[in-house]
């Protein structure tokens, strides 16, 4: 029984090593429980399926421990572009949903880290869908493996 406290390091598999879907379809992502955790860091591995392979991932989070029967259960991470601030004028900033793209530089497996991402105890579940991008090699998709440490 692992102690589920903020300072406890917990390693979980976000995506078992497997090829991405054909034709740039998003995969069905594993849901991970993360209540009470403050931070998560993702350790990503990508092996291109063909030259110029590129994949995308996105972080989705839920404030609910289980999907709702009615209503929205999953929310994609957002990116914010702050608007210009001018005296005596309201500012309009922009926020939109964000996907992250990684392009392979060679044929061998490539490992990189994403995070730490702040959770601050405000996220009940998360998941990280992935896909080979249309601009990559959608007919010969690469392989992705992701683990995460929670603290």
């Amino acid at each position: 029984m692992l102690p589920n406290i903020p300072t406890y390091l917990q390693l979980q598999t976000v995506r078992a090593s497997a090829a991405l879907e054909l034709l740039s379809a998003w995969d069905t992502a594993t849901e991970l429980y993360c209540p009470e955790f403050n931070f998560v860091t993702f350790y990503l591995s990508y092996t291109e399926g063909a030259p110029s392979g590129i994949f995308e991932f996105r972080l989705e989070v839920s404030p609910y421990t289980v999907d709702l029967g009615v209503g929205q259960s999953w929310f994609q991470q957002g990116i914010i572009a702050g608007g210009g601030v001018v005296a005596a004028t309201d500012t309009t900033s922009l926020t939109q949903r964000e996907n992250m793209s990684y392009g392979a530089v060679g044929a061998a497996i490539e490992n990189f880290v994403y995070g730490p991402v702040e959770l601050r105890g405000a996220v009940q579940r998360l998941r990280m869908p992935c896909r080979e991008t249309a601009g990559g090699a959608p007919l010969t998709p690469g392989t992705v493996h992701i683990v995460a440490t929670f603290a």
Partner: protein
Amino acid sequence: MPGEPFIPTYLSLQTVRASAALAGAGAWDATPTELYSTTFCFVTFYMSYTRGGAAGAFDFTLEVSPYSVDVAGVEDWFRQGIIAGGAVAAAADTTSLTQRENVSYGATAAPIENYVYGPVELRGTVERLRMPCAETGNVGAPGTVHIVAMFT
């Protein structure tokens, strides 16, 4: 580590790279020192570089591991990523870019030059880290690098 409390608020100074010349021909350090960073929130690197010849420059890269020891059959080390946020336009999803990152430092003169890198956030989510280096400027006369790190 007799008597040393290993807790997030304890200030811990460790040697990341003992002072020594970089490898020849632009090779990366073959066996960078691995440091344990469990439970720490931040790390700040104190870097010293003395060029070996004119136009000396070196690269370093931060690699981290979610495992306290290497695990057979899986990838153990992951390089830091850099993110370039995509343009945000109303009514359209944004695609940002992330790639593995090396960091380059170029000497401005012959004497030793010291600078700081960080603090880098660990937030208790990194078990080990290491920082391999390579001469990139004057690969025929590699410089000397010394790195210590403060964990908090």
